[in-house]
């Protein structure tokens, strides 16, 4: 089942990148790079979440940073 998700996600990201790449003006190299970087980033997180759903998220990170203040409201 995880493989299906993986395949689906990869397909989705690929479609997304391809459909957008052709629309970017040829001389806008930077735009293309940014598009690809964000898509790959998304793809990596998606894979991470598919295989390790319990991986600590951004909220946990923030929670650690702001814990002393957050205690005030508990």
């Amino acid at each position, binding site marked *: 089942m995880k493989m299906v998700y993986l395949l689906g996600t990869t*397909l989705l990201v690929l479609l997304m990148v391809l459909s957008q790449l052709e629309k970017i003006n040829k001389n806008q190299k930077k735009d293309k790079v940014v598009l690809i970087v964000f898509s790959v980033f998304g793809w990596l997180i998606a894979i991470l979440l598919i295989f390790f759903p319990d991986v600590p998220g951004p909220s946990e990170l923030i929670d650690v940073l702001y814990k002393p203040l957050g205690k005030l409201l508990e």
Partner: protein
Amino acid sequence: MNPDYGQANLRKIFFLFLIVFVTLLTGCWDRKEVNDLALIRGAGIDKKQNGKMELTVLLYIPKGGSSSEQGMEGPGGGGTMQTLIRSAQGNTIAEAMSILQEKLPRKIFWGHCEVFIFNEAIAKEGIAEDVDFFIRMPELRERSQLFISKERARKILSLLPPLERDLAEVVRELGEEKIGMTVTTKDFAEMLVSEAGDTAIPWIKILPPIEGQEEKRTIAYITGTAIFKRDKMVGKIDDSLTRGLLWLRDEVRYSTISVTPKGKKGFVSMKLLRANSKIVPKIRNGKWEVVLKAEADDDIMQNTTDIDVTNPKVVKALEQQLNSQLANRVNETLKEVQKDMKADVFGFADAFHREYPEVWKKEKHRWNEIFPNVKVTIASKIKIQRQGMQSGHPLISSEKGQAE
């Protein structure tokens, strides 16, 4: 701006997502159709010998399709084949519900459940756990009414009322009339988290069927109130004491009172038009007191005596009698509920909390000792507004109306 970004591109993206979503269409997860649902109209909870509880549900069978006669029911046909009773046992309602689901080809749907009936035995053990389910379950509405009965809830639900569609409808309508108490799930939970935490739920009873009628062709009706200490039932008061309770809770909406004028025979009956009451708490020299301030307007409905109800002096006297009758009612209720059952279903604790927050904080833990000794005084102002359509001389001859 790139001229490419226009309609054409939007459409491309749209198609892209269509393609992607085909992979997601493995099923429609929350599909619910009426002919796949078992609509629960009411539920009853009984206690079983083995310590488990029994959940009985009253299902409404939607008669769909064009072939059946919609909305037309044959003479006395109300209830025939329109409803269905099913029961299941379990440790919790949720558990019983899943066992019940095994016996039903359709998916249980709680969204139309209007009525919950608890058996007395289960009420004595506490019903907070069940009410937790009523509030937690997303489908259930917080306006469902709660009732307590001595008879098995299953027996009550399986009655076939002659007038309404099913028993749940009957009891709900009776509750809406507000002759007795009306307690919704929300009201109950609210009472439970209030300062005192004592609760009350209307009591229902099966109306004996008319002679010769089928035993099941009858209804259940509200008579009296079950009094709870927190969520455990501790006693029951009858109809007339319930009236006193309603006065204390400012929930009187409908009432007819008869008084016998001094030195006369017969009655003058009056109908309540509007009423409101308020409890005013006072702490004087460490003594906790409550004043019940009640106001009401009445109309005269019937006069079986020979007094002249158009005479303002007579009306004054009648008002006096009404006031003292109200005081008696309330005092009787207080004697049973406050002194004997020691349950604060009147909201005294909240009233004190509102009026004396500082004192309350200190004395809160002693409330159980304080409450039975709270002195209640009644200051009521009942006015008789009109004498009705019959205004002239009494129809009753003076000989008949004289006291012997």
